[in-house]
């Protein structure tokens, strides 16, 4: 807070509590203490009061103690010259405001003044489902605004909010600069799946009026819910937030602190104050800040930028006329961007807006020369891709520029130089993530039908098919794909993505030079991202619901056994959800470098496995190997006769030299038990220098599923080179060459497999 805000918020709170007390007195006289009070279609009574105080209010007279509590939370205004601290006091006053506001709405329901009347208005959607007994409108009342959200809608939205499909909710209070801006703001929020609650007014004019005038459909179906044209109705947003915590967080009524923290951590909501901010709005904002919801205003108000009660800034002022932008529409878009950034809302754009089908199904598609419209890179031209981190205010999310000629300037089956430069910014973004993100370009671009992507960095080679070009696929669509997918897949670390596609020769030259400098720098640093270079590994308990005692420990050189989570993923996951399934394991003292024992990992193994496992060796299959749930990509198993191990992957349905198929073996390897000689792993662990390094490393691999050998040929070859035996992969038997131990032994002898010469594995 600042003294300015504190003064107004406390004043607003005091006024509202007084108003609530006055209304309650009147209602007690006129209606009687036993009069029923309730919000429609909810089992949570008056939800905010229930959550914060534990009181199940169902009668008017039960509001008395609630308002007494609210009064106790009020404080004197900060003195003008010798002030005592006011932050805690203001937050308390904010809570008093919320309690009073909910009490007022409850009393208004008693008088039939809620939901607010709005003649001629029809709500969109949800009719039969939420109010079976009524004809139209979500609340069964034509000519009325929505009022509080009912439990059925809460459940349908709430779970999306919690699991991230719906990135957050916006509580808009006030009126926009113009109807045009009001519509744009709401469209921008809808586009991002952000739920929008509308309330409040400026001098009698509300954003609800503005949207109705413009014919915008309001209601559950459009994710844009009109609560009421006064500030008090904004309480429904916080009642909704409280119920999210009670319903999905499993929190008990009255556990106020936990409910508020749950919202801070998981419900990505913010308040957008449009137009003048008066005392009551400041007071309500102070209440919202208790939930960790920041306030963004489009007028000049004092900013509160330090963090803590909220995750990022508390109060941000973005005077609408000062927002950069060609016109008001662009300013509105920027304003929404800012809100998202301040709350740390993670936007996932599910659709990839390109004129061709898009999906992982197209990843393996090949574009043959005959079908090719154009290629970038390869023999006759140069293409490169380069991703760099930028500051949040340096780039514009979703901006895609093509610098230089387009593909129409190139003849059929021609070739063209291309530089794809991606700038990403995010609060959790780190320089170290650059190469990880850059590596995703291959998968992302390959997802488009009619596009083939090979290679990476400055040996990128992309082909575009005639079919895709005919459908209108152009250079800018590479940008669209990348923007969409980075948000969808890396929302945890990426807040903004801007892409530039260079076909201009000079630009390419200069960017390529910068990119190469960076590749070189990363090569040196990426090599540092080894187990020895970090201080923490990460736990992964995503699948503990299947194997309650299993814990994955993920290190830079050993990814999760499911193959889906590597160390950086875990780090990112932890940064978005610090109480989630991936927790840092501080290594502490190193006990045995060769086998991979640390104090921290052992300690964690004990705790995470609930005492079933007491030690875990990160790099050994023979001694205290890591346990597995059942979702491993591959199983590594000892073949004693061969003095080595075999690796069978999930896709391999054939017999192995161990005399068992993958599915039979899976029963032995899974379940969270330590079985020396058997281990479930992610397939990329095979190529890690730390792959069973305590037992001799990759040279121990005597047999692999053929399918694995084929799909990972390149990576495996690199391992062979690393191990100093370029022919190593050829010496490893596979399903085609050996299905029994006898065949295997014969093969190994014949091909001089190095495992035979290694010291005994046990």
């Amino acid at each position: 807070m600042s003294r300015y805000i504190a003064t107004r918020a406390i004043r607003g709170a005091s006024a509202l509590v007084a108003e609530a007390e006055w209304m309650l007195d009147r209602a007690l006289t006129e209606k009687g203490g036993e009069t029923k009070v309730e919000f429609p279609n909810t089992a949570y009574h008056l939800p905010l009061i229930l959550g914060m105080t534990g009181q199940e209010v169902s009668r008017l007279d039960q509001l008395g103690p609630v308002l007494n509590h609210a009064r106790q939370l009020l404080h004197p205004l900060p003195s003008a010259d010798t002030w005592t601290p006011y932050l805690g006091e203001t937050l308390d006053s904010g809570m008093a405001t919320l309690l009073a506001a909910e009490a007022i709405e409850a009393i208004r329901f008693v008088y039939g003044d809620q939901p607010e009347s709005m003649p001629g208005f029809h709500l969109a959607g949800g009719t039969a489902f939420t109010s079976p007994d009524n004809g139209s409108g979500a609340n069964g009342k034509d000519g009325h605004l929505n009022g509080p959200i009912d439990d059925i809608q809460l459940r349908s939205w709430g779970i999306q909010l919690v699991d991230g499909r719906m990135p957050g909710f916006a509580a808009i209070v006030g009126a926009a600069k113009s109807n045009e801006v009001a519509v744009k703001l709401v469209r921008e929020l809808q586009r991002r799946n952000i739920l929008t609650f509308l309330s409040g007014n400026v001098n009698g004019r509300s954003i609800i009026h503005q949207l109705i005038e413009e014919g915008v459909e309001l209601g559950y179906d459009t994710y844009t819910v009109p609560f009421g044209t006064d500030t008090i109705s904004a309480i429904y947003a916080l009642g909704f937030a409280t119920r999210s915590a009670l319903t999905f967080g499993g929190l008990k009524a009255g556990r106020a602190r936990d409910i508020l923290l749950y919202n801070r951590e998981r419900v990505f909501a913010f308040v957008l104050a449009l137009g003048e901010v008066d005392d009551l709005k400041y007071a309500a904002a102070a209440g919202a800040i208790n939930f960790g919801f920041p306030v963004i205003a489009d007028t000049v108000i004092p900013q509160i930028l330090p963090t803590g009660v909220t995750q990022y800034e508390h109060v941000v002022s973005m005077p609408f006329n000062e927002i950069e932008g060609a016109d008001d529409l662009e300013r509105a878009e920027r304003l929404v961007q800012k809100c998202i950034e301040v709350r740390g809302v993670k936007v996932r754009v599910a659709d990839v807006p390109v004129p061709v089908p898009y999906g992982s199904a197209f990843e393996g598609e090949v574009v043959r020369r005959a079908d090719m419209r154009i290629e970038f890179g390869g023999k006759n031209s140069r293409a490169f891709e380069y991703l760099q981190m930028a500051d949040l205010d340096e780039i514009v999310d979703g901006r895609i520029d093509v610098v230089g000629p387009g593909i129409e300037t190139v003849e059929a089956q021609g070739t063209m130089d291309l530089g794809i430069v991606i700038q990403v910014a995010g609060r959790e973004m780190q320089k170290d993530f650059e190469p990880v993100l850059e590596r995703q370009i291959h998968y992302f671009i390959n997802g488009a039908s009619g596009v083939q992507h090979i290679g990476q960095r400055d040996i990128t080679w992309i082909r575009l098919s005639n079919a895709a070009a005919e459908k209108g696929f152009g250079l800018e669509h590479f940008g669209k794909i990348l923007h969409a997918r980075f948000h969808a897949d890396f929302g945890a670390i990426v807040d903004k993505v801007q892409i530039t596609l260079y076909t201009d020769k000079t630009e390419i030259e200069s960017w390529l030079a910068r990119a190469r400098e960076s590749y070189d720098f990363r090569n040196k640093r990426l090599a540092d991202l080894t187990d020895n270079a970090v201080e923490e590994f990460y736990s992964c308990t995503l699948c503990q619901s299947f194997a309650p005692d299993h814990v994955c420990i993920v290190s830079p050189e050993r990814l999760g056994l499911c193959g889906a989570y590597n160390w950086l993923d875990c780090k990112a996951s932890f940064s978005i959800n610090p109480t989630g399934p991936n927790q840092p394991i501080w290594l502490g003292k190193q006990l045995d470098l060769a086998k991979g024992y640390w104090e921290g990992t052992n300690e964690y193994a004990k705790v995470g496995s609930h005492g079933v496992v007491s030690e875990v060796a990160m790099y050994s299959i023979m001694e205290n190997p890591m346990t597995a749930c059942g979702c491993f990509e591959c199983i590594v198993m000892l073949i004693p006769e061969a003095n080595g191990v075999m690796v069978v992957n999930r896709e391999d349905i054939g017999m192995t030299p161990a005399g068992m198929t993958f599915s039979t073996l899976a029963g032995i390897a899974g379940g969270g038990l330590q079985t020396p000689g058997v281990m479930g792993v992610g397939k990329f662990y095979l190529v890690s220098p730390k792959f069973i390094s305590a037992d001799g490393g990759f040279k121990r691999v005597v047999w692999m599923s053929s399918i694995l050998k084929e799909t990972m040929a390149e990576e495996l070859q690199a391992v062979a080179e690393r191990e100093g035996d370029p022919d190593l992969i050829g010496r490893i038997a596979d399903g085609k060459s050996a299905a029994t131990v006898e065949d295997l032994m014969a093969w190994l002898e014949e091909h001089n497999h190095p495992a035979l010469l290694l010291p005994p594995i046990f």
Partner: protein
Amino acid sequence: MPKSKRTPEEFSIDPAAQEMLIRAAEIGVGTAFSRAEEMTPCNIGAAGMCCKICGMGPCRLTKEGQTGVCGATIDTIQARNLSRAIAAGAAAHSDHGRDMAFTLKAVANGEAEGYQIRDVAKLHAVAARYEIPLEGRTTEEIANELADLYIAQFGQQRGEILITKNAPARRLALWQDLKVVPRGVDREVVEALHRTHIGDDQDPEHILRHAMRTALADGWGGSMIATDISDILFGTPAPLVGRTNLGVLKEDMVNVVVHGHEPTLSEMIVAASLDPEIQEYARAAGAQGINLSGICCTANEILMRQGIPAAGNFLHQELAILTGAVEAMVVDVQCIMQALVALAENFHTKIITTSPKVRITGATHMEFDEHRAYSIAKEILRAAIDNYKNRGKTQIPNVQERLVPGFSHEYIRYMLGGTYRASFRPLNDAIMSGRIRGVAAIVGCNNPRSQQDYLHIHVARELLKQDVLLVETGCGAIASAKQGLMLGQAGLDQVGPGLREICETIGIPPVLHMGSCVDNTRILTVLTEMVAEGGLGDDIDDVPAVGIAPEWMSEKALSIAAYCAASGAYVIFGGSSPVSGMPDRVADSELVLKYLSEGWEELFGGKLEFVSDPDEMVRRALEHIDKKRAALGLPAYQAEKFGRSGDTQMLELEKLPFTEKRAALYGAVE
């Protein structure tokens, strides 16, 4: 060397003090300031190289290779001297804690006249820490059990004192590894005395290891007990508006100054001064009423909780008497100069000793007993009122300043999030982001060997400009208060841009008054809570924080320094070191001095260094803070990144004429 006479301005930066020193010169009486001029410190004692623990000496070791008669080396002698000082300091704090525990016991048994348990919530919180059952028990039963548990910590012989459980887990484990967890408060003090007797522990590092254990029995023992119980009995402090400096004395009222360290009697005097009977008695004597004020840490105790004005810090005790307006100076324990009595003879002021432990020849003794505390308090006030008629010419400096004290760690939690969201998160965030570069505790005494308050204030002002948040206790706190640094306004115009944002957000002064010197334990608790909140490491020594006592002088200060270092803090002491050695004359005579820095840092992550130049103190403090920031992987401090929060823009806009204001404020409205 010719003796240079210092001017009043050179004695103190405080104009009130300067005025009284001029008056002292006019009257022709001496003060600690002038005596410090006249008394050259013993250079051998100052170096820690004089041993007088047995009758074969005293041995003065001033030559290369020299040992004491018993063969004790310089470093052994220094370690013993320091260890004894620490033991004395720990004893003083802890004995204060013990008295508090006995008072709590008496209150619980209904035997203490006038007292009550004012902070039941804190009683419950503290009791719960030690797993004392709360369900279905009366406040008195709980208080009784807590009092017994606390009393037992003093006499406990084996095991670990329970209070150490409050430290971060990593810290406690380290102490356990190093075998320095105190077994019982008294036992460690006694053992410190035993070990330093002639012919006992004669390995300096071994002696100092036990000194740490003794100090821990203070910081995570006696002192923490004292703070907890003071809060339980008299209320946990929360911010209020107070005043300080000699200007708080009143011409037309009976001025009673309480001085010393304990809140037990002074709180009762506060209550009694409001008694209509006493008020009437004062009016009958021709005064407008009773004006109570404090000196030293007794002042801090009643300032923090009741907003009673603080007449000044340690060096103000004589200056208050020099006003001629003090009817009675009521003293309890610690830091009371014997000189008061002789000085008071020049005026009408009565020096009233009250502690069974403290009598001063020539002073009036009115012994305090908690069983009839209220009656005694009234008797003392009556004696003061009776003395009003004897008042002669007065001269009260017209110098005072307001302040906002009352920052208990409980309130700090609250202020950072309110009732529902109280936590240290915003503070940790502020440090992690770099808005607050680090935290410095500036604590400790006044010392007439330096210019009064100068070192405190110089260091404080410099650190504030560097966005270092200050927490203060004791006489250092009063120094800052006198300069207006404990006002919200100072958070706007005396600090760097990041700290300003924090001060403005919370509404705090940039210097937080956390209480008396025994309340340094509040700082330990804050550090522990910051560690627990996360993001600033796993232990106190990870936190970008320093402790500074620029004008230290008491043995208690040394005990505080030792327990802070043992807790992982970097402690910088101003003035001279009691174990400085004479490295220019005797080689290796500063081994102990070095050990306090390097040796302790290796063991505890904390260290004690003596730095006389205040700019060097600031430099080292910032260097340490930046080192800790870097170790935590926090962004380097960059002041210019911050400062965009706050009211300024808004307030400027509000000055505009209505139409312009409307356009500027509500840019969004056509």
